[in-house]
């Protein structure tokens, strides 16, 4: 929202530098994002009068001009052809730094000196709309009445300072000069000046010319007046300057007046070409389904019952509150106009504006809120300007169709002690009343009870908290800097803690970092093709789709973690990074049914991916085992059913209750191809919700034996199909009570062992808790083991 410093001065006598004002507005709730000095590139440019023009003796196209710039005479060489003796022109002299980046210094043109340069409108940052001649491809010829030697910023009224103010949604009243002026008045405790709302009429009766009918609930107030004998010339420079400063294009007196009132009063207005209003009627109604209207931005829009239009007796002429139709706008030939000054329902304008994608200064203000009380002053102000600018004759009477209650007085009682409690600091009572009054809030205090009556434009003030905010933002937050005491002096002591899952996940993260892993962070949205690439054909295929996605890549909510990590690996390999060990703790979102009728299940998971030369299944298995060892999880491994893992080199982790709580293994070769990855990738995933929910691991330590363990090595030859797991458990049961462990330490394959055979070597640990074992006892156990292996798995002792 652009606010002009000079314009503010119409309402408050401020003698404060723009920088200070910007700072003050910011700290009292109106953040000034930028302070723009209109004259930034206009210094050292003056109004000059060309007194003599001669041809350059050595250059056909150059003219040597003698120019009176007030206190001196300078010589300017120009190639422009639109200059003439007696013309007033902008002259930039040494030091000037024009807005197109040109810096002026005296120059020699074939032996003739030039003290500077004449400027075009473009070089001064203005155009034809701002001043006649401002858009010509040549020098800007200034009006004859300008003072020779004057600074150009003063002559052209380009000496304003503009604040770009961020007005928060709770303060629609401040989308206007008058609103910000009220704030300035409160901040500095300065009185608001009255602006002139008076106007003269030429008699007659508005009702003879136009009638207004409101046929919708969504227009609480519609005011109209009629002006004839229009004089649609340019507005005076001061008015153009104001609009220009706020980024609005000056057009003609009538249109400029509506825009002026919009910016100053925050009240959108519209001016109709009277002769195009069929039936001399204005009807405010809901649009009909399929109704079309061509509007001023060059487009035609099709409307429906949710939109609102202003129509005449035949056709829609305006999309209410948003944009005017081409069929009824004020044209250069317009002689009579009807001014509209109305209030439209915020939601309706907002929805229509969003739906058709058109945002205008009007729709912006209507969608934030315009008050029922605003139009009256706004319309008067417009009519005042009509008089002041001599823009036409105002016919007596104003049409006012108002279905809402105006000048509503709203007052409530607030507790001063509650306000003190909210703030935690006590503001002197006199100051309280003074601040509220300066904000236009009538307030009286009796005991603890503060009687408050906010003005109509402060609908946001409803309770103690709102008053507390008004007080502290004007009083200043600095008060807390020097306040004694600490937080929570008057409240309860609470004991802090982490949700158990977060503790668990953090432990896993730290462990993985120790194992050389890097934590990644991926978007939880992905392409709808992710499951297909991962060969997934189960319920995880049912992904939640975003209704308004940013792109296809971010169009569904992930049900699988692996996709993102595989993309990370692909990316890293593509930039030459090697030895990739990644993990991520994140969520997958599994819908219960599609389309969503209830919230999905959000499941927290740890995923791990490794792409490294020499890495294998058992290294990953080691990582997984180590992560699980401190939990109380009892699990078994089964061949994995995960579709994106290699069916022979992967395992599912199955908890005692049958729940699959994770899996790990090599990525399926087809999947690698789908991701265009040419290295093996190992991947693991754990359900951290499940694991962190397990009861804490309980330890129960047995007495350490007095006797030493003994070890014996055996190697057996078995069929390939026989697993380590089978042999180990057979060894264990054969050893019985004496079993203290069995480690596989070698796997050997050779043709000499026979076809489809392998040799497995175990170190068997035995321990007798009661005595030292003799060699005979040990041999007996080992023989039992070998017999058992032979019986069960046809294992032969390797020679």
């Amino acid at each position, binding site marked *: 929202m652009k606010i002009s410093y000079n314009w503010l001065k119409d309402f408050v006598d401020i003698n404060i530098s723009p920088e200070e004002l910007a700072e003050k507005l910011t*700290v*009292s*709730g109106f*953040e000034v994002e930028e302070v723009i000095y209109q004259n930034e590139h206009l210094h050292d440019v003056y109004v000059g009068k060309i007194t003599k023009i001669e041809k350059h003796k050595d250059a056909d196209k150059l003219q040597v001009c003698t120019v009176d710039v007030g206190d001196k005479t300078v010589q300017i060489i120009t190639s422009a052809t639109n200059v003439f003796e007696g013309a007033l022109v902008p002259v930039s002299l040494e030091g000037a730094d024009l807005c197109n980046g040109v810096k002026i210094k005296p120059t020699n043109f074939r032996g003739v000196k030039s003290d500077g340069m004449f400027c075009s409108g473009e070089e001064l940052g203005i155009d034809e709309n701002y001043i006649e001649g401002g858009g010509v491809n040549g020098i800007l010829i200034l009006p004859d009445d300008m003072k020779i030697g004057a600074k150009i910023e003063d002559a052209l009224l380009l000496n304003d300072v503009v604040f770009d103010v961020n007005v928060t*949604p*709770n*303060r*629609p009243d401040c989308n206007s000069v008058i609103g910000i002026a009220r704030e300035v008045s409160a901040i500095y405790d300065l009185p608001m000046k009255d602006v002139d709302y008076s106007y003269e009429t030429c008699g007659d009766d508005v009702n003879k010319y136009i009638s207004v009918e409101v046929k919708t609930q969504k227009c609480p107030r519609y005011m109209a007046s009629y002006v004839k004998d229009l004089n649609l010339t340019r507005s005076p420079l001061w008015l153009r300057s104001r609009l220009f400063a706020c980024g609005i294009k000056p057009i003609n007196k009538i249109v400029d007046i509506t825009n002026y009132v919009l910016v100053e009063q925050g009240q959108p207005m519209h001016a109709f070409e009277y002769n195009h209003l069929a039936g001399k009627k204005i009807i405010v109604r809901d649009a009909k389904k399929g109704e079309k209207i061509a509007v001023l931005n060059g487009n035609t829009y099709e409307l429906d019952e949710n939109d609102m239009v202003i129509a005449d007796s035949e056709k829609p002429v305006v999309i209410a509150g948003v944009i005017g139709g081409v069929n009824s706008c004020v044209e250069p030939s317009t002689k009579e106009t009807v001014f509209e000054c109305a209030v439209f329902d915020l*939601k309706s304008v907002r*929805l229509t504006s969003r739906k058709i994608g058109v945002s205008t200064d009007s729709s912006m203000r209507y*969608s934030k*809120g315009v008050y029922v009380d605003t139009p009256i002053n706004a319309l008067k102000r417009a009519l005042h300007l009509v008089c002041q600018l001599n823009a036409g004759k105002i016919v007596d009477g104003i049409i006012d169709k108002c279905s809402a209650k105006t000048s509503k007085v709203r007052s409530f009682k607030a507790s001063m002690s509650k306000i003190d*409690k*909210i*703030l*935690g*600091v006590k503001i002197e009572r006199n100051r309280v009343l003074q601040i509220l009054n300066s904000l236009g809030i009538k307030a009286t205090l009796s005991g603890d009870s503060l009687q408050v009556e906010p003005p109509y434009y402060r609908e946001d003030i409803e309770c103690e908290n*709102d008053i*507390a*905010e008004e007080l*502290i*933002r004007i009083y200043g*937050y600095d008060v807390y800097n020097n306040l004694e*005491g*600490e*937080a*929570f*002096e*008057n*409240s*309860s002591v609470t*004991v*802090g*803690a*982490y*949700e158990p899952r977060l503790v668990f996940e953090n432990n896993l*993260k*730290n462990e993985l*970092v120790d194992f050389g*892993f890097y*934590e*990644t*962070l*991926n*978007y*939880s*949205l992905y392409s709808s093709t992710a499951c297909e690439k991962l060969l997934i054909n189960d319920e995880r295929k049912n992904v939640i789709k*975003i209704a*308004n*996605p*940013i792109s296809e890549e*971010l169009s569904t909510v992930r049900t699988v973690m692996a996709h993102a990590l595989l993309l990370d690996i692909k990316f*890293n390999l593509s930039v030459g990074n090697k030895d*990739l060990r990644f993990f991520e703790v994140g*969520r997958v*979102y599994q819908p219960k049914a599609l*389309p*969503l009728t209830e*919230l999905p299940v*959000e499941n927290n998971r740890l995923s791990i991916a490794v792409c490294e030369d020499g890495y294998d299944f058992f290294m990953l298995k080691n990582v997984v085992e180590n992560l699980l060892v401190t939990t109380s999880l009892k699990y078994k491994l089964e061949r994995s059913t995960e579709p994106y893992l290699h069916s022979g080199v992967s395992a599912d982790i199955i908890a005692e209750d049958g729940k699959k709580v994770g899996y790990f293994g090599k990525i399926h070769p087809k999947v690698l191809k789908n991701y265009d990855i040419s290295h093996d990738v190992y991947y693991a995933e754990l359900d951290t919700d499940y694991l962190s929910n397990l009861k804490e691991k309980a330890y129960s330590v047995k007495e350490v034996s007095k006797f030493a363990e003994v070890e014996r090595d055996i190697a057996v030859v078995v069929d390939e199909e026989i697993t380590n797991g089978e042999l180990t458990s057979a060894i264990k049961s054969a050893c019985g009570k004496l079993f203290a462990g069995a480690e596989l330490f070698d796997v050997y394959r050779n043709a000499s062992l026979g076809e489809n055979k392998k040799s497995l070597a175990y170190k068997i640990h035995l321990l007798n808790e009661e005595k030292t074992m003799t060699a005979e006892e040990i041999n007996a156990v080992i023989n039992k083991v070998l017999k058992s292996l032979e019986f069960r798995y046809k294992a032969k002792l390797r020679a």
Partner: protein
Amino acid sequence: MKEKLEQILKEAQKEIEACNDVKRLDEIRVKFLGKQGELTSILRNMKEVPPEERKTVGMLANGVREKLEEALSKKGEKLEEEALLKAMESEKIDITMPSKGVKRGALHPLTRFNNKFMDICVEMGFTVIQGPEIDTDYYNFEALNVPKNHPARDMQDSLYITDNILLRTQTSNMQVHAMEELKPPFKIVCPGRVYRNDDDSSHSPIFNQFEALVVDENVGLKDLMKMIDVILKKLFGENVKMRVRPAYFPFTEPSIEIDATCQMCQGKGCSLCKGTGFSEVFGAGVVNPKVLEMSGIDSKKYSGFAFGPGIDRSVMVTNKIPNIKYLFRNDMRFLKQLR
């Protein structure tokens, strides 16, 4: 005899002195003190000494023996020490060669920052919880005093799934869940992901926030300000400066925005803080009583305050990360710098 003993002593001492290897030292020992040794022979021939001298000579001979034994053992130790030093010298390695074993990886900088922040909060009595990222319009907006078509909805472009279900735009949804589920007094802090329909060079559609909420009797702005002062000092150091601006959030009233000394430039002014030396760290405020009431908390008895920032920017400045997009790119060249 006496002379002979002294001569043996002298000779032996000389030989011990000159000896510089352990083997030779042993030979010396044998030569003098061994069974056939010179000193041993003298002692063995004691009976040839006249009885009246025997005592003196005996003492003398024992004295020589003791001296020799001492000299031998001293020299022995010295030689062993020398030999060890020499052996170690020969085992000297190049200590600049690379270490062996697994090299530590790294946590994501966001996790590190989050952990630091959460630890501070836990210390102050907050419980860290997380909640749904996909939520209903009610929890994300309505119960936070942002009814449908409220202008405040313009501040956040949402990603919708259905008319009523969306990806949360703010962790503030957790305020409502907490107020519904917990009994005051409580202090909670909820880190998590949020989603917006916004993707350009300085915005990610997914980013991280946390929401902290205190509900109790007798809490207000002063508690908030004092607490944030402590948090900022713990996060960014004792010298951090804080600046407060009034702001607007529908669910807090009064609402403020808190700026702290820009950690990228330490307040000198840089492109990130647009030369102001400050950057925004928290949005905060006293919980709007309407919000308390909507979630069934008696606003006459209880008050509260909330604060919640985007933390990606703080992660950026505290790690001097030049581009916010690095946070989700997972490039090893980036991650490795954060070990």
